[in-house]
């Protein structure tokens, strides 16, 4: 079996640079010492391996579940005494118990105030320009905060053995709270407060909106503007609150694309279409406007719009699309829409143009099939 030296998939993506040059090394120097400590503990027999810990914790979890279920059945336990995060509590109320992930491989009890990995006290993260400033702070338990936008400010309000309370004054951050810890993290962001234990999420705040997206774990979001004042978000979920303001900063193209994507994944196609249209009109020269125009046309197709309208949408996308790969997709979808609307001549013309522009396209065979004139039947009169 012949295997190529290069991936045809990567070749066809036509990345501006080879993939290896686009990726940065991933090693986290701040974790190197921590990992070595764990390794030596295991070599010396002082700490259990991650694999054995999984089964042990799984057994404990199973026993706890059986006991808890039995107790609940007999006593009709008060939900407030349940060992889970209560979903409905007044804003500002103290947290209940902590949710421990039974499949976590390490469990480190908190000792004293949480400090940075170098032992210093964390007071503030201020990032003016992520390209020139240090954007990440890592804590001694390996949790981290990374600024993902310019003009980001995070203040420490309280760092104790039980709580980490921070304030996102403005900007955007990715937060990674290591599982297994016993500290509860609270990030205040004006209209909205986020409470987590072991999770990864993104939080952004501007003068017009606050938004949180969960990547991993469970997040509690509190705000008087939410139903019951609190909402529980799981991975893939997103909560956004807009803030009325007389002058507002427009969200960037990237934010609009992300929010459109979130709307589409939530099944709200009209909202996704609206956001994509806003991106295209507000940022006509942005590199993302072509992608947005294409996605808009695809969303219209998913909404079941007639082929005639789809033709116009894919034509508009083709006018804006810059990347080679995107343009080939636009041509292909436009040809299909033209054929669906009964315009085979139009489809043939677009196929000709596509072949002229991309003779080695991954759709070349399909384009050629439409360009090749149909040979007359020799037996017909």
């Amino acid at each position, binding site marked *: *079996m*012949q*295997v190529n030296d*290069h*991936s045809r*998939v*990567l070749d*066809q*993506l036509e*990345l*501006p*640079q080879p*993939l*290896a040059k*686009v*990726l*940065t*090394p*991933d*090693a986290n120097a701040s974790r*190197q010492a*921590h*990992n*070595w400590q*764990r*390794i*030596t503990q295991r*070599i010396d027999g002082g700490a259990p*391996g*991650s*694999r054995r810990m999984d089964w042990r914790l799984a057994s404990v979890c199973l026993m706890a579940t059986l006991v808890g279920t039995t107790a609940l059945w007999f006593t009709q336990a008060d939900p407030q005494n349940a060992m889970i995060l209560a979903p409905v509590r007044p804003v500002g109320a103290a947290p209940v118990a902590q949710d421990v992930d039974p*499949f976590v*491989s*390490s469990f480190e009890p908190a000792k004293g105030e949480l400090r940075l990995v170098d032992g210093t006290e964390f007071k503030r993260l201020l990032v003016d320009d*992520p*390209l020139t400033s240090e954007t990440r702070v890592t804590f001694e338990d*390996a949790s981290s905060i990374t600024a993902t936008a310019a003009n980001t400010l995070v203040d420490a309000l309280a760092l104790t053995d039980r709580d980490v309370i921070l304030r996102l004054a403005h900007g955007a951050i990715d937060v990674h709270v290591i599982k297994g810890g016993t500290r509860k993290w609270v990030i205040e962001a004006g209209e909205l407060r986020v409470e987590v234990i072991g999770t990864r999420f993104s939080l952004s705040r501007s003068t017009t909106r606050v938004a949180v997206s969960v*990547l*991993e*774990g469970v997040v509690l979001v509190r705000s008087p503007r939410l139903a019951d004042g609190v909402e529980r978000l*799981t*991975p*893939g979920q997103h909560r956004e609150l807009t803030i009325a303001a007389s002058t507002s900063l427009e969200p960037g193209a*990237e934010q609009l694309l992300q929010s459109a994507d979130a709307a*589409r*994944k939530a099944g709200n196609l009209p909202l996704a279409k609206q956001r994509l249209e806003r991106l295209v009109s507000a940022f006509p020269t942005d*590199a*993302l406007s072509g*992608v947005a125009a*294409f*996605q808009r046309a*695809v*969303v219209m197709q998913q909404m079941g719009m007639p082929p005639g309208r789809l033709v116009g949408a894919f034509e508009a996308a083709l006018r804006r699309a810059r*990347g080679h*790969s*995107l343009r080939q*997709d636009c041509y*292909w*979808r436009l040809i299909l829409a033209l054929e669906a609307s009964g315009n085979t001549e139009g489809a043939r013309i677009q196929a000709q143009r596509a072949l002229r522009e991309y003779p080695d396209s*991954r759709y070349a065979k399909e384009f050629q099939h439409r360009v090749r004139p149909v040979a007359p039947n020799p037996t017909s009169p």
Partner: protein
Amino acid sequence: MNLIYTAVLVASGAVVPFVRPLPSGGDALHDETELVRDAIAGQRSAQHALYVRHYDRVHTRIARLLGRSSEVDDVLQDTFVAAFRDLETLGDATRFGSWVCGIAVHQVHRRLRRRHLLSRLGFVRGPDEPTLHHAVDPKAGPETQLLVKQLDEAILLLAPRQRLAWILRYVEGCQLEEVAEHCKTSLSTTKRDLAHAEAHLNAWFDNGSKHAG
């Protein structure tokens, strides 16, 4: 006084202090052979030196293959613990780096298979984390970031062994024999896995869904 006089001579450039030359490639290999020998003998400093020397490479490889970064440290620890435990089985000490990377790939494969089983039992929460997108240089353009993100979505749909083989071959740049060795399969099986992975990825992109997400 002699010390001051010497310092003055050094500062004036009249005397060049002796500096140990950097080891050449040959010296580094010899050094590594010695480190492996000392590590087998249980010397902690030798084990630490090997760990520090290969940490970046192993960590990056695990992160590229595994995705979910909360498990990367666990797998890295498992890898080095296994490496130091089985170090006597390493025939050629100069191949320590490649050998420990192979252990890392094996550990990742075990994790992926276990994750697959736990997800079927409903114990694993949340989707797999992208493997490549988080490593994209922030200075890369938005289109590049989007393309790599979409590549991640496609890669996550591959079977564990195909995913490992494809990333090792076309992202990490490993030779076919090395991929087969790391995946603990025959060369023909590796070729088949790569061909299937390419076919699946091609089909995923051909559906035009990469730009629509």
